[in-house]
């Protein structure tokens, strides 16, 4: 076991643990946000740079600080390491900058995006972003395409986290999509009209942190916050059959994996469970899915939220930051 201190909280973790995993073990506000890392997919992480942290002390053996901010998702903890996340202004500034970079080419079409309400990018920019934009140029644009009869690809919204690529590599037999081209012309594609229909391919919808990959069997049926997420299971020949069903009344609108507090599913589920089993009788309902009270999804169901009685006049709200 080794000792690592993150934002003044010390934890004991096994050797080979990343800074991020150690932070998740501690929990709470000190956990760096992640957009590309996915603990259940080998090789993910390092790309989005939202999880950057400052290492002020390398280790007991070599106490020198690290010269640059490091990606906590892919940097191993060392014994005696001291890390700053929320305590470091440098980290906070860098995170703001990363959010800005992720948003400059994002269409910000949240009002018509199926991911709204459960979007990691939305949450990230809500917490770390800046009101207003300094970006005045044209945004990158792609056509919306159906990559198979179950999945829709909105490349405009993609942040190139590569999670779906790793998912297909690791869960299915023959990945037939990937990243084409490079730089800001890079796009997720199936290269000349291949379609993604492999068993387990539906999981790319769950791992997508934004609304780039959406479920065609659910698109525009309902906003997620009007639905009630219930844990359910069935005897499935392909997967563990443990899912979350999203109900309205007695109707199942969609089926997803069970996402934890870090937005990662507990188990990947098969395409049959996800796309075919929309009848309430297909499932044994276990009870409501616990969703963090901070999420808009929980607003209608689990908490008696008091409506704010006074709405502040516009100018008393925080000034939009002008840069």
């Amino acid at each position, binding site marked *: 076991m080794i000792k690592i201190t993150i934002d003044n909280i010390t934890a004991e973790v096994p050797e080979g643990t990343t800074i991020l995993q150690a932070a998740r073990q501690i929990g709470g506000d000190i956990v760096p946000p992640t957009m590309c890392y996915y603990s259940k997919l080998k090789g993910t992480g390092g790309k989005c740079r939202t999880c950057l942290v400052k290492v002020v002390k390398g280790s007991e053996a070599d106490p020198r600080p690290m010269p640059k*901010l490091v990606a906590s998702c892919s940097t191993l903890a060392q014994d005696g390491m001291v890390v700053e996340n929320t305590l470091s202004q440098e980290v906070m500034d*860098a995170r703001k*900058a990363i959010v800005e970079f992720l948003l400059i080419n994002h269409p910000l079409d949240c009002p018509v995006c199926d991911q709204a309400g459960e979007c990691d990018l939305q949450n990230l920019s809500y917490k770390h972003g800046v009101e207003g934009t300094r970006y005045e140029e044209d945004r990158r644009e792609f056509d919306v395409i159906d990559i198979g009869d179950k999945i829709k690809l909105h490349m405009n919204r993609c942040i190139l986290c590569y999670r779906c690529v790793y998912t297909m590599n690791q869960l299915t037999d023959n990945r037939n999509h990937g990243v084409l081209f490079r730089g800001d012309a890079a796009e997720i594609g199936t290269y000349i009209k291949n379609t993604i229909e492999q068993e387990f391919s539906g999981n790319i919808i769950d791992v997508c942190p934004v609304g780039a990959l959406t479920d065609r069997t659910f698109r525009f049926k309902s906003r997620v916050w009007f639905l009630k997420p219930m844990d359910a299971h069935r005897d499935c020949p392909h997967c563990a059959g443990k899912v979350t069903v999203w109900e309205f009344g007695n109707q199942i609108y969609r089926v997803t994996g069970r996402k934890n507090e870090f937005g990662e599913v507990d188990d990947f589920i098969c395409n049959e469970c996800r796309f075919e089993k929309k009848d309430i009788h297909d499932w044994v309902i276990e009870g409501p899915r616990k969703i963090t009270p901070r999420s808009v999804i929980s607003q209608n169901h689990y908490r008696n939220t008091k409506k704010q009685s006074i709405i502040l006049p516009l100018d008393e709200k925080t000034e939009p930051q002008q840069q």
Partner: protein
Amino acid sequence: MGRKILLEHIDVPGINTFDVYRAHGGYKAAEKALKEMSAAQVVEEVKSAGLRGRGGAGFPTGMKWSFLDKKSANPTYLVCNADESEPGTFKDRYLMEHIPHMLIEGVIISSYAIGCNTAYIYVRGEFKYIIGILNKAIREAHANGFLGNNIQGSGFNLEIHVHSGAGAYICGEETALLESLEGKRGNPRLKPPFPAVKGLYESPTVVNNVETLATVVGIINIGAATYAGIGVGKSSGTKLISACGNINKPGVYEIELGIPVEEFIYSDVYCGGIKDGKKLKAVIPGGSSVPILPQNLVCKTANGDVRLMSYESLADGGFQTGSMLGSGGFIVLDEDACVVRHTYTLARFYRHESCGQCSPCREGTGWMEKVLYRIENGEGRMHDIDLLVNISKNIEGNTICPLGDAAAWPVAAAIRHFRHEFEFHVKHPEIVKNIDHGSLEKFNI
């Protein structure tokens, strides 16, 4: 004129063939290393010669070799980085085109030193004709017993394979190169693990630049002590500099490290002065990725010392008033050159070459290019200049590989030293739109 180690016989007709190269002392170093020296001795020799990587970062080569994971059960690989694509850098191409056997010999000696039996030369896709030249040289070396099994009776075996890139600058970054060599998309890897531990096919790997490996030949020939005696301080030996821009004699020159920058620009042995008798405006001393130096910091450092062509002297003053020797792509701008246009051109390059893997580089390079395009075309606003500085700062140090830095530094340095030119572009859109790209006089309004 300084001592020549790499280009001594470059003008000999037929030096690109085995026989002529051999007749001029070629493959003597390989014979010496393989027959008279142990592998450890070769490494020691390269270490004490003080050879530093010629690919850009200037990392001590002998030290890099000794980092190899010797406990690994996998074979060790040597990969020669011949992806040379940095704007302004064209020295490796010259070497491979004219004296390919020197690279082959360097690969043989270096492979022997690190215990590698399969070496790869990864050649930039656009250098198609060079692949032919190298393959011919390899065939000749084979036929003469310098490649294959039991080379010259030494018991050492080596095969060299030439691999063509597909035209991506990013595949010059060593881990992207390895990905590409493995047949994957050329995205840089996260480090650690470094190639010395897990490189090609998860095996210990050394990646060295063409010039670095070719220089090993000279070191074995003349001895480490003699080699270390050339140059200044930690910048030992000779270096190829590819000079271009507004000078009288653009071309590839071999210099002894440590000659004054002024001599390099104005001596008839080298660049021969600024073209058409114009004045010097700025120099980018080490390839497009390094900061630009304005005229007052080219020949003298900020402290008033004479600026030398060496790793240390060019870096003197840090990024505030210095730059880097980098890969030796020496770009000279005269008084009529427009720094804004130049910076825009570089930004365009980096945007096009970013692999797109990490967000600061993917988004930031495109953003900077678009803003610079506006400024260059008379559509800029004053706050765009500080915006550019801020974007470059947000990219710098936050990316997976150094391409992000390489894209950020030139923009930051250009604005640091030539802010007035950017402001001129904003203030006088009608001039920058209609006239050529502006001269020093025009900026003095």
